[in-house]
């Protein structure tokens, strides 16, 4: 197992370096600089960026050296350390993405199992159509629609319009604060999770259907084992493998999708940070966000791969090759 982890980490190194090169290249080929937008920041600029006389590869190596010690420099827009901005934004995005992941998988598995167990029931068919449609509906449009119809624009103000907390939430006490945050999170998490929910439940249904048709299920049934036990102890265990694989696909799309959701619901996470930074030509922040997002995604993919290895012992021994 340790060897496998080491091998995967080693494989990620070139990927990480490649992403930093592209990020660096984009940020340095981009025209314009903050000076054009804000003469004030010229001081910060002269401290930040290596003198232009230096060739780009040298600049890149310097930047990479600092990145490896988590020093992303200072923001050109407000001179605050970029690391500080990131530590404010990253937890919000991670909270959003992880909650969405939990919601999506937590609902998808029971829904998929139900559909596989009762394929002909009306509920199953309705669910399958509904999930198929849900998969096709764009996230940001759903966001716009719930904002329009559920936050008081047209119709009842069931949920808050934007942000993660109410303005006066500091005075609520710890429980009230938590409840307030949860109330603010309902719509964003729902928007972020439903597409993943649809994909994963389809996968659960398909692999459960396959598992239920196998001989060992027939054998278990012949031995008189209860329906519930067959479903959850025999069939589900064997059909979770492809579902675990889907984790590594879900995470990047959730992190990407959170940009749109953050933007729509006014949540100051990584997506909003990146968006503002690019508008202000704040390159240290832009490069930091891009690098960090890539690292988080890589780690998430690694985590999913490791989970896969835990679930399926064959992977550990041979490595994921065919």
């Amino acid at each position: 197992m340790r060897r496998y982890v080491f091998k995967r980490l080693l494989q990620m190194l070139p990927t990480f370096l490649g992403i930093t090169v592209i990020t660096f290249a984009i940020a340095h080929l981009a025209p314009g600089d903050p000076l054009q937008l804000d003469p004030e920041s010229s001081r910060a600029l002269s401290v930040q960026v290596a003198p232009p006389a230096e060739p780009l590869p040298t600049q890149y190596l310097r930047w990479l050296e600092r990145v490896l010690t988590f020093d992303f420099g200072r923001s050109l827009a407000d001179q605050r350390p970029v690391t500080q901005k990131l530590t404010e934004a990253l937890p919000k995005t991670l909270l959003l993405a992880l909650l969405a992941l939990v919601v999506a998988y937590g609902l998808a598995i029971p829904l998929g199992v139900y559909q596989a167990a009762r394929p002909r029931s009306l509920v199953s068919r309705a669910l399958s159509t509904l999930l198929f449609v849900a998969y096709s509906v764009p996230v940001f449009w759903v966001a716009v629609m719930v904002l329009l119809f559920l936050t008081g624009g047209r119709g009842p103000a069931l949920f808050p319009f934007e942000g993660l907390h109410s303005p006066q939430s500091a005075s609520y006490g710890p429980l009230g604060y938590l409840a307030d945050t949860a109330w603010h999170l309902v719509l964003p998490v729902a928007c972020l999770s439903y597409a993943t929910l649809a994909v994963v439940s389809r996968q659960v249904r398909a692999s459960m259907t396959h598992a239920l048709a196998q001989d060992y299920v027939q054998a278990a049934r012949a031995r008189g084992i209860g329906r519930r036990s067959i479903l959850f102890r025999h069939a589900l265990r064997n059909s979770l493998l492809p579902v675990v694989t889907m984790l590594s696909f879900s995470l990047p799309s959730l992190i990407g999708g959170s940009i749109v959701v953050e933007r729509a619901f006014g949540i100051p996470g990584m997506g909003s940070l990146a968006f503002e930074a690019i508008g202000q030509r704040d390159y240290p922040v832009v490069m930091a966000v891009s690098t960090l997002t890539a690292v988080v995604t890589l780690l998430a993919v690694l985590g999913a791969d490791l989970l896969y290895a835990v679930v399926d012992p064959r992977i550990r021994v041979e490595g994921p090759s065919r």
Partner: protein
Amino acid sequence: MTPAEELVLPWRPAAKKGRGRLGLACLGGLVVTALGADLLASDLPLAVRVDAHTYLLPALTRPPQLRLSNQGTLAQTAEWQLGTPIPFGPNQTFATATGRTDAAPWAPDREHLLGTDELGRDVLARLIHGSRASLSIGFGAVLISLLVGLLLGVLAGWYRGLVDACLSRLTEMAFTFPTFFFFIALAGVLRFTSALPLVIGMGLLRWPDIARLARAETLKLRELDFVLAARVLGASDARILWRHVVPNALPPVLVAATFGVAGAILMECALAFLGIGVPAPTASWGELLFQAQRYLVHPGAWWLAVFPGLAVAGTVLTMNLVGEALQDLQSRS
């Protein structure tokens, strides 16, 4: 499908067949709409006789004599005219045949079935013309990613070893690279003047799925007898790949590509929603949704947000239906 599965799912094939047909029919309708947009919704009519001249298809030919006319004004001056089903162009501002003067946006009514935006442009006309941008971006991006993904995937599967390792890292890189960031930055660099950079950028980022599939298929195919037979006959690698491996690897890849079109259309809209889209005044569905955002705070004009979203969702649903039908066809054969 095993016999046991057939027992569990007797209703599925028939239901899926119907879904696939529905998908194909909708796709046909969409393509016809996109191709015939100028004949479906235009400020100029299909045929008109005015000032002792008969103009055929002025909606397409746009004769300079009719430069200042539209179907509303021609209704007054022409001897006769044959109008388009929706008598407004996509960029025709304050389009009205009844001479209304109240402030736009106008709500859906008999004249504007889906309402207008704040410049009085007909939403239905803009949706019809927007299908061009959205569909061509979707199909164009997938075509590029199909070429790149097929090439890299087949090469990785065929040569394995070092080539495979390098290409796998490249795939991983494209897969983990923050896509939205890439486009936000790219828009800053290039200042999009056409949809082309969007199409190319999306095509260059969305190939990993296709490459993965092509690689897996090639790994399977290279061990098969007909490939060996081709080699025994003295065929070169290039010939084996082009004539034997690629055609056989294509079907599953095409399924992924169909789903890819849906994904690319969604992405165009998501990017437009963030303000990175085709330049104005070209109508695209994403751009329509982006414009609609302004009405969230003063949600009088709900129709601006609802209808473009339905168009996108319907198109994506169509592509997913077609993709699912194709997938089904393959798993049965």
